[in-house]
């Protein structure tokens, strides 16, 4: 009896380091942020819950904070472009790469370079390409002028199209990641299906519509969920690119970061909860829809 108890204790001790770190840096902060969100704690000194308790004030402030909802709009705008433009581009590239034999490895290597680099590197690199400081040293404007695309020349970092430009840069950084997952999904579709369709006289569009798209549905919904979560919880690229462009490209998570930076920990926590609840709702709805879709196409094995 004692031997088995000791045995079980040893087995448990293997999990213990992971559990301690997990409890300290995941579970505890998770519940702690609910408490913090009810306070006006400003990170100076220990948290005195009684003194700093403000009830739901933070949430009321958020609800009526137009800057916050504007940042939500900005985030949704960028997410919209990532969902549509980025992912369609990624799917088109994946389809194209499976069609060409030569250089397909080269393309795969190149497309995947951007996702492995940090948001800061990408953001700063493009900032320097777009920056017009010192005046007249704006590389990108010089390039578009020389390419005969002078109508594109503009203030890329703080001009009126800055939100769209930021969204496109985001797509540019992220498409390689969706490309790789699409590619894996495409390679999982058995070739016989296409051969059978061809014998039956289907053209390329018909096989895409009737074979590729339905069989790719699980991958597509997966990419959509991850795109939403990934876009709404990243901001470092935008911080490096244009620092929010005076509110035009400020995303929610950047507001949270800035509020924490100015010691408004309670407010930042409340904002984090609001954003978290919205994202959890979206991702669960998406998974629910994707299950229905997969059932409809009969590709749901589990």
């Amino acid at each position, binding site marked *: 009896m004692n031997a088995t108890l000791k045995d*079980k204790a*040893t*087995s*448990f001790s*293997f*999990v213990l*380091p*992971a*559990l301690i*770190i*997990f409890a*300290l*840096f*995941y579970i505890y*902060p*998770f519940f702690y*942020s609910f408490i*913090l969100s009810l306070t006006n*704690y400003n990170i100076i000194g220990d948290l005195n819950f009684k003194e700093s308790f403000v009830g739901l004030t933070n949430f009321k402030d958020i609800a009526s904070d137009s800057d916050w909802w504007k940042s939500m709009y900005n985030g949704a705008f960028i997410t919209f472009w990532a969902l549509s433009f980025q992912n369609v581009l990624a799917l*088109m*590239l994946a389809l*194209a790469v499976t069609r*060409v034999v030569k*250089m397909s490895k080269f393309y795969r*290597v*190149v*497309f*995947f*370079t951007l*996702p*492995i*680099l*940090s948001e800061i*590197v990408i953001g*700063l*690199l493009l900032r*320097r390409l777009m920056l017009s*400081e*010192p005046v007249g*040293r704006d*590389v990108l404007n*010089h*390039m578009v002028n020389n390419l005969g695309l002078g109508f594109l020349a503009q203030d890329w970092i703080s001009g009126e199209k800055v939100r769209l430009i930021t969204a496109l840069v985001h797509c540019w950084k992220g498409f390689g*990641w969706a490309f*790789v*997952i699409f590619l894996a999904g495409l390679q999982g579709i058995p070739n016989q299906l296409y051969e059978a369709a061809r014998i039956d006289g289907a053209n390329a569009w018909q096989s895409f519509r009737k074979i590729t798209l339905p069989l790719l549905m699980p991958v597509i919904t997966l990419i959509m969920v991850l795109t939403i*979560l990934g876009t709404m*919880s990243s901001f*470092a690229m935008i911080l*490096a690119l244009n620092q929010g462009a005076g509110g035009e490209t400020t995303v*929610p998570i950047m507001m949270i*970061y800035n509020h*924490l*930076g100015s010691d408004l920990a309670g407010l930042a*926590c409340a*904002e*984090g909860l609001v*954003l*978290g609840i919205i994202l959890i709702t979206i*991702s669960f709805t998406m998974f629910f829809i994707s299950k229905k879709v997969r059932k409809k196409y009969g590709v749901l094995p589990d």
Partner: protein
Amino acid sequence: MAFYQTKKIVTLIVLHTFLLSIALSCIFPFFWMVNTSFKSNAEFNSDYGLKPASSLLLDNYNQVIIKSGFWRYFLNSVIYTFTTVILIVLISSLAAYSFSRLHFPGKNVIFYMFLAAMMIPLPAGFVPVYVLLQQLGLLNRTGYVLAMSNMGLSISIYLLKTFFDQLPRDLEDSAKIDGCNKLETWWHIGMPLVTPALGVVIIFNALNVWNEFVLASLIFAEKKYMPLQAALLQFSGEQVTEHTLVMAALTVTALPIIILYIFMQKQFVKGITAGAIIK
């Protein structure tokens, strides 16, 4: 016949034009980055960094690495990445081994807890973590490494556990008969068998730490403890007009990753898509 041949060639030309134009848009900024980093300011001002550098001028690198202290930030990044990855590999493989092979009450509950943590998005998880570190007096390198090792923990445990599950137990059984205790079996039998999955875990987490910015920028107020990403943003803010210097700094940060990637593509692809494929 000739018609189909022409059609095929035209299709290929269209496809390659499409693929090449996107590929160029990916490559060009990095050529510009490296190229500009070798230029003097005068040369950059005359050609926008668009012509090949006239000589491999190392002044910018000298300025950035030695004088602006990027050797230190680089070293910091290497140290944080190494310690975090080692910590994660040890902790997660121990846990994964136990989840897969050993028995104790509550095992499944704890495992599903780790799983749930992977599924639930905590976009602003850094806020309470930062407050916690502040209260524990851990706004330092130890606190940073500990917090970072939590970030990759759930996924690493999951990856290793599923890998352990697929392995036969024969070797471990014979090790047990030969008198190895559990810890020895884990280290001498389990770890070598699970190396392919460890590669993915290492790359996934190493990239994560190397590219991490948010926590690092919050925790390290003092420059000398900053890793590259946090230092880069600050450096760029200080050097508003010095494009060539900033390009040298970016090259120092990005090039090691790009070179490693070119040599280890498969592991990188697996590593960065690991999170996606699980879900």
